[in-house]
């Protein structure tokens, strides 16, 4: 005869193995313990094996002198710096191409995605052609295309293409004039910040006023004028405290100014254009997910098409767009490790390439590199989840 647990008299507790929650807890603990033992075994085994094979272990190498040069660095770096610093240099280069790639891919993606839904036949077909082309060619090939087929065919340093004698483009890269700031320059960014704060205040005031009275002023245009005009005014008033360091052909190459290396250009273009094709499709699907009734209702209020998009469709579409957008951003950042194929000095090329080989500390270096990508990805996801929660439809 079986007794159903809930038929027991109140106050008499069942044994823990009959309680589903407690049973689950025990299994979870067992699993955690098994994983911990496995990890402990692996780490111990690695250490034993490495020392048995006479291979040096540990992170002490990070303080040793690196002794090799890196072509692009956002922080001061010379060959006398440490391996630890090569890690930072590589990390910053990865973040640079990843960050600028995300921005460019988002811009291109939104424009192409919206263009694909345009009633203009030519525009829509062009957008479709763009998406179908770039989405279906492997990224590595696209990087090679930009690097070897486009940038490698540029003229040599001595016959550079010149734009107004200040900007030069050749096979070594893009040479731009670099602004050198003199004293009194601090006022200009200050004016810029003041203008932004004033613009935000203006927009908030304008919105409240519109809600209260129905009247509005063109705050967007006023803000734009303020943000562009005020710093310009200060610049002129302080007597233009900027001089430009214009690149000049000296010896082998252009000196002075600011150089964008072709490896960066190729990687950035390839990553942006490739990922933008996916983002365009995400944007299109997001917009199409909004019921057509919404658009028609907005049009019935005789809102122009751009306002229909901006006020009705896109705010709702963002809910659908953001989660898959996050994974595209993560893909872009992770794909930037293909840099090593064309010699852009990113984390994988500098740290997991040169540093690994010079020190031979494969396990430490690869573990650090993996930890970096994991951390970047988790941070991006966290930010996008937060942003998603902000734009999510609040149901009332």
């Amino acid at each position, binding site marked *: 005869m079986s007794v159903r647990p809930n038929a027991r008299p109140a106050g008499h507790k069942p044994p823990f193995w009959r309680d589903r929650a407690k049973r689950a807890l025990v299994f979870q603990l067992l699993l955690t313990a098994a994983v911990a033992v496995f990890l402990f075994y692996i780490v111990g085994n690695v250490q034993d*094996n490495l020392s048995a094979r006479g291979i040096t272990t540990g992170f002490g190498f990070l303080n040793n002198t690196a*002794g*090799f040069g890196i072509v692009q660095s956002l922080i001061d770096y010379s060959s006398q710096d440490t391996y630890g610093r090569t890690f930072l240099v590589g990390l910053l280069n990865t973040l640079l191409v990843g960050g600028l790639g995300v921005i460019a891919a988002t811009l291109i993606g939104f424009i192409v995605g919206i263009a694909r839904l345009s009633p203009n036949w030519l525009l829509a077909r062009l957008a479709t052609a763009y998406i179908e082309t770039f989405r279906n060619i492997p990224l590595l090939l696209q990087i090679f295309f930009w690097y070897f087929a486009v940038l*490698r*065919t540029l003229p040599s340093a001595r016959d550079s293409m010149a734009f107004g004698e200040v900007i030069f483009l050749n096979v070594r890269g893009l040479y731009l004039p670099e602004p050198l700031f003199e004293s009194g320059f601090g006022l200009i960014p200050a004016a810029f910040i003041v203008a932004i704060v004033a613009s935000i205040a203006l927009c908030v005031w304008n919105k409240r006023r519109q809600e209260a009275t129905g009247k509005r002023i063109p705050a967007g245009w006023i803000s734009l004028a303020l943000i562009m005009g005020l710093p310009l005014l200060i610049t002129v008033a302080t007597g233009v405290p900027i001089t430009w360091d214009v690149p000049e052909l000296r010896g082998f190459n252009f000196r002075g100014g600011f150089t964008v290396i072709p490896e960066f250009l190729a990687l950035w273009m390839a990553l942006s254009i490739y990922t933008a094709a996916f983002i365009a499709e995400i944007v299109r699907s997001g917009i199409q997910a909004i019921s057509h009734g919404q658009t028609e209702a907005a049009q019935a209020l005789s809102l122009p098409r751009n306002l229909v998009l901006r006020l009705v469709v896109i705010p709702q579409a963002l809910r659908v767009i953001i989660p898959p957008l996050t994974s595209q951003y993560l893909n872009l950042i992770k*794909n930037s490790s293909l840099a090593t194929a064309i*010699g852009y000095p990113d984390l994988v*090329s500098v740290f997991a390439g040169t540093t690994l080989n*010079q020190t031979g500390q494969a396990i430490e270096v690869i573990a650090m590199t993996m930890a970096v990508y994991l951390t970047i990805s988790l941070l991006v996801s966290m930010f996008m989840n937060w942003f998603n929660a902000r734009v999510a439809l609040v149901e009332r």
Partner: protein
Amino acid sequence: MLNKKHWVLLASAGAITLTGAANAATLEDTVERGAVQCGVSDGLPGFSAPDGDGNWQGLDVDVCRAVAAAVLGDADAVNYISLNAVERFTALQSGEVDVLSRNTTWTTTRDTTLGLNFAGVNFYDGIGFMVSRDLGISGADELDGAAICIQTGTTTELNVADYFRANDMEFDPIVFDTSEQTVGGFQAGRCDVLTSDTSQLAALRIQLDDPNGAVILPDIISKEPLGPVVRQGDDTWFNIVKWSLFAMLNAEEYGVTSENVDEMTSSENPDIARLLGQDGNYGEGMGLEADWAYNIISQVGNYAESFDRNVGMGSPLEIERGANALWNQGGFQYAPPIR
């Protein structure tokens, strides 16, 4: 995304993570497998590169062939594994290859911290620079501000940085994965200078579209002793690789070649008799047959034959013996005696 390099590293890390302690019986494993696992370059003419029929040829390849001849009696019993500069040490550490014969510079760090041993020097080299003839440059001291194409993961990266710093000059390192890409960068004008070991420069120069448009500067800025590498902890295997190389050098010194080795077996010269196993069995201590050196010389040839065929005057590279001549002919190549 993972490319081949990462797979090799991951697989090697996995092997080190999960398997037991190092297997010291490389010789037994090799005999059982019937082939020597040999790590070579990703295509460097003269040192290790496949010929038109897909057979690997070169000075470094001949070391692999010599080891195979000594151990298995068949110089062709070699599995060649092509490795780039970054993969090479991990592949050797993890046991994917048993000999690394890939124009690898012998340095303290590599010899003492990677769990590896260098088994000798089969080519004495040094870093040089190749520039386009149009630039009209005649010496390395005129290279201030140049963009320099370098292959990643090499001692060249370090030595070039040292040289420019010591001479208070600047340069932009343009670093590529393979020697092919490095040459491509140089040809496209991405960099003014291609730098590598001078022997490699000679090999890379003949791959250019217009070899006469490039000159190799006379300056040699570093010592680069290149040689085969084995894992630490298997002394028998270490000895086999070391003495395979020494056998080729000794054969040159005693005038034994692949042509005359059969006549030489009846030589009265005691050095030759010991080398060819006619007097005592010097292979025994390494677990080899008495004819180990005979097999090397008859199938691969002596060092001079290998040098001439692959990198010397009998090859397109036309490198002089120079530092690589025998000790009694003004070079550094010196093998301990077999006795």
